[in-house]
Every structure is written in C-alpha cells, then in structure tokens.
C-alpha cells in the first residue's frame, strides 16, 4: 500500500512536471481577412444558338441543347469501308442543273495511307464513262475540290466546325459542263469542262464516305437537299430516326451508318472580358456516366483549346487554356452525339474557369449546365 502511494505521488509529480514544461505557453498572433468584392470582370452572354438562361450577374448559365438527329457515317476499321450512296440516274440535257447539298462534319480522322474522306460527291457519266466531282478531306483546315479536267483546288476552311457543302453540276451549253462548289452557301470554286456536243451526260449518283480502305473517321451528315434535273427537291433531316435518302449504301468491316442524336460543333455560350487585363480561361467538367460521346472546347479569335472528351464517361476532363484579352470574347463550343436508345436529357455540369494571365493567385469558377435533349 505504501509503495502504491509512492507510485501515485511519483506519477502526479511527473504529470505536473510535464505540465510545467509544456503547458501555459500559448502565443497569439492577430490575423485579419478583408473582402473587398468587385464586379465580375468576365461575364457570360448567350450565343443565340440554343435557349439559354443566364444568371442575374451573368456569371452562370443553363443551356438547353436541342437533340436533333443526324446520320453518323463511321469507319473504325482500317480494313473496312463505308459509302453512303443514292443512285440518281438522271440525264442532264443542255440547260439542265443538278445539285446536292448537306451539312457535314468530319472528326477523329486518321489516314496513314492518305486516301482521304469524301465529304460529298456526284458521279457523272459522260458517254458511259464515270467522272467524279468530289469534295475531299485529308486533314487540317482545308478541303480539296476534285473534278474532271482540272487540277485539284485546295480551299482553306475551318474544319473544327460543320459546313454546308454543295456541289452543283449544270450544262449551260451542249458542249460544256459547269461545276460549282459552294461552302456555307458561298461559291468557293467553279469552272467549265468541255464535252462533246452530243455527249450523253447522266447524273449517276451522289455519295459520301470512302470506298478505299485504311482510314478511320467519323462523318456526320444532316439536312440533305437534292435538286434533281427536273427541279424536284428531295430532302432528308433524319428526324424520324430513319435514313430514307442514302438507300443504296454499302459497307464492310467495322464501318457503317446509323441515325443518332447529334449536334454539330456550335457555339453554345460566350464570355466577355470587361477588364483591361488579359485572363486565361478554360472549361472543366464534372464526372459523368451516360451513353454519350461529346466534346467541349473554347476558342478566341486566333486559337482553339484542346477538348474535353467524353465517351460514355469523361476521358479528358478539361480543355487547355486560351487567352481572353481585355474587351474581347471567348467562344464555347460543344459537339454531342448519343444513340437513339439514350435516355434524354443528359446533363453536363461544367465550369468556366479563368485566372489572371501569368499568375495563379486567383482563379474564378463559373458554373455552366448543359442539358442535351
């Protein structure tokens, strides 16, 4: 009992000693945090493309993207091929006109053998021999106009967005064909091709895709409009979920065509820099799991960011930065596709992120909700 008492007393002494060593030493430093808010230096504005709700301070946005349908022409097989085709077989007499038009966007292009992708083509038979009037894409920001009797014409065009393509073949005189290429409703190139006066000219077919193999790509086609030599208009917007136009198509391997929910790359939101200093901006996206393929990116007047990429889930979660100069705009783009079996709407939760260029001192995040469907 005595030893136990000694032990208790000893432990108490140790405890008191520890307290005397460490306790009671508390040092206090004052810290003040002042908030002096400012008006938002960067504000949103609607693009006019889609119904958009902008928050009262223009620092948030909800965008309702209409899920239109389009034809997805895909070739994911370097040994496969797909050609979407409609046989026409109409004679083009002197004074006749035939044209084909559709909206096209090509993406995910790989072409190690350089065979290209035909964005649009008319096969014209002259006295039974086939001639092809084509718009090719080989990569980069240009397309190639190819036709009979003329060198290939290279036409520079921004291929990060869709374009309205039109080829018109007319016969202004018995011995001449006039071939005209239009991009976004503007004449891009035209020339005349001499033919025998008594030549039998037949508009044989219209097509897209590529017969040659070894490439891989996605091609989206919408709003097809064909003017026959008799002036009859045939159109197809795929909104019934069925392709009633390219009825003579063929494919092999992992390639084909299917009608899907689709939006061509379009501006869905603008951001304006109200400040005089330059900001760097980008988009980031929250995790998502849905049967959808999508990309989002940002552009200023000279540069395009890398893309957010989604294929059933987020593959790349943020874009690279582009600069937003004082008083200038940046443009936010989207490109979304989903199978017709997808349950809509699909909601994308993004954030527009900006910081003072050359500094990571302050970073500002604005929420953006994109509803597809």
């Amino acid at each position, binding site marked *: 009992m005595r030893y136990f008492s000694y032990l208790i007393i000893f432990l108490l002494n140790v405890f008191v000693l*520890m*307290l005397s*060593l*460490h*306790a*009671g*030493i*508390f*040092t*206090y*430093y*004052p*810290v*003040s*945090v*002042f*908030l*002096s*808010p*400012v*008006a*938002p*230096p960067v*504000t949103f504005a609607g693009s006019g493309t889609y119904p958009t709700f902008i*928050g*009262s*301070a*223009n*620092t*948030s946005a909800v965008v309702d993207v209409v899920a239109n349908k389009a034809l997805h022409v895909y070739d994911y097989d370097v040994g496969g091929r797909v050609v979407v085709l409609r046989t026409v077989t109409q004679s083009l007499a002197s004074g006749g006109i035939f044209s084909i038009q559709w909206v096209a966007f090509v993406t995910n292009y790989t072409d190690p053998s350089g065979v290209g992708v035909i964005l649009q083509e008319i096969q014209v038979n002259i006295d039974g021999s086939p001639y092809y009037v084509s718009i090719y894409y080989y990569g980069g920001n240009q397309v190639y106009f190819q036709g009979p009797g003329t060198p290939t014409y290279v036409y520079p065009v921004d291929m990060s967005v869709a374009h309205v393509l039109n080829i018109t073949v007319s016969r202004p005189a018995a011995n001449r064909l006039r071939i005209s290429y239009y991009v976004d409703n503007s004449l891009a190139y035209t020339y005349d091709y001499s033919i025998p006066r008594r030549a039998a000219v037949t508009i044989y077919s219209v097509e897209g895709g590529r017969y040659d193999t070894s490439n891989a790509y996605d091609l989206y086609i919408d709003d097809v409009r064909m003017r026959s030599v008799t002036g009859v208009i045939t159109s197809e917007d795929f909104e019934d979920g069925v392709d009633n136009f390219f009825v003579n198509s063929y494919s092999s391997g992992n390639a084909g065509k299917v009608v899907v929910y689709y939006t061509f790359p379009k501006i869905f939101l603008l951001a304006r820099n*109200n*400040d*005089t*200093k330059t900001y760097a901006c980008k988009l980031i996206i929250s995790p998502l799991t849905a049967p959808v393929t999508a990309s989002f990116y940002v552009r200023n007047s000279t540069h395009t960011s890398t893309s957010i990429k989604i294929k059933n889930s987020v593959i790349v979660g943020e874009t690279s930065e582009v600069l937003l100069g004082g008083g200038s705009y940046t443009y936010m783009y989207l490109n979304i596709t989903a199978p017709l079996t997808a349950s809509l709407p699909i909601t994308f939760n993004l954030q527009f992120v900006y910081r*003072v260029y050359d*500094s*990571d*001192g*302050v*970073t*500002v*995040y*604005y*929420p953006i909700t994109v509803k597809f469907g």
Partner: protein
Amino acid sequence: MKAERKLIALLAVAALVSIVNASVFVYYPITVNLQPTQPPIIFSKGKNAGEQDLYGSTIGVSMGSANTSLTITVHPTYQTNYYKNITVINNIDSSDSSNSYYVAIRVNKALSNSDSKITEAKLLIFDSSGTNIAVVDLLTTGTTSWLGPLNANGKWFVDINITISETGGSPGSAPFTSDSASLQLIYSPQNVESAP
C-alpha cells in the same frame, strides 16, 4: 441600562476582532523575469502575395514589423474565387530539430455576411507536400484542434476560397461593399491543453 451595557460589550467585541485581523500582513518575494526571444513562428508572403487580383486590384498581404500579425485583403466576385499560396506560416526555430510547434486557428469574429451573399468562405492550410491539413470556416467563430506539429524550418501555405451567390446580383456591380473576419494564429509547443 441593560441595553447600554450590551451595546458597550458589542463595541468591545468588534474592536477586539478588528485588532485580531488587522496588522497581519505576510510578504513573500516573487520575481518575474521576462527574457523575450525572437518569434519562432512568423508569417511571410506567399508566392501570390501582391499578384494581380480581379480588375485593377492586387492580392493584399501585409504583416507587422516582426511578422507576427497578418492582414489579407482579397477582391472576389460572384461565384467561386480561389486564392492560392498567399501567405506562408514559417517555423524558424531551427535551434533544435525537436523545436516543433502545434498551431491552431481561432476565428474570433466571423465574416458578418449581413446579406447572406457569401455561401462559402474557407481558409485552407497546406503543408509543403501539398496535403491539406486544415479548413477553417470564416463564416463561424471557433477554434481548430491543434494542427501539426509544424517542425523546425517547416512551412505551411495558406489559401482562401470564397464563394458568393449571384442571386440578386448584377454584372455591373460588386456583390457587396466589404466584409472582414478577425482571427488568431495560436501556437504552443504542446498539444495536451487547449488554448485558453
């Protein structure tokens, strides 16, 4: 007569009591020696102190002459504003590798948030490896538990995250005029006792 005698007796007793209690004063000598030292914990400016803030302002970080007081001024706008690496907490007590200090942050006066525009206001502390070791809510008063220890020659980095609702706001005006919070950084070589 009896009453007079009683009164006299009571006065006598009172006088006696006062004699007994008075004039007994005992004095022990106590010496308090102050031997000030340089502060072992000091503030310093973070990488982004003085960098450009939104519009024409800068991220304001100022310290007292001994780096033992700190004032931070930031200029957020609507939505989420993240200020990174604006202040550093340094343990400069390198006399002994065991000279570590535990640190706590006390919010004495929270942001007033009078119109409820601020939906989130956090002061975040990270160690040199980037690990978050504290999130201090600037909207409520209170004291964190002891953090650390902050080892000799160690550094901790301070970020601030402010989220302001845009409800009722306007693109041409600031969300509100100003607001402030008063805090204390508290440190101690022990973490057994809480700071008073």
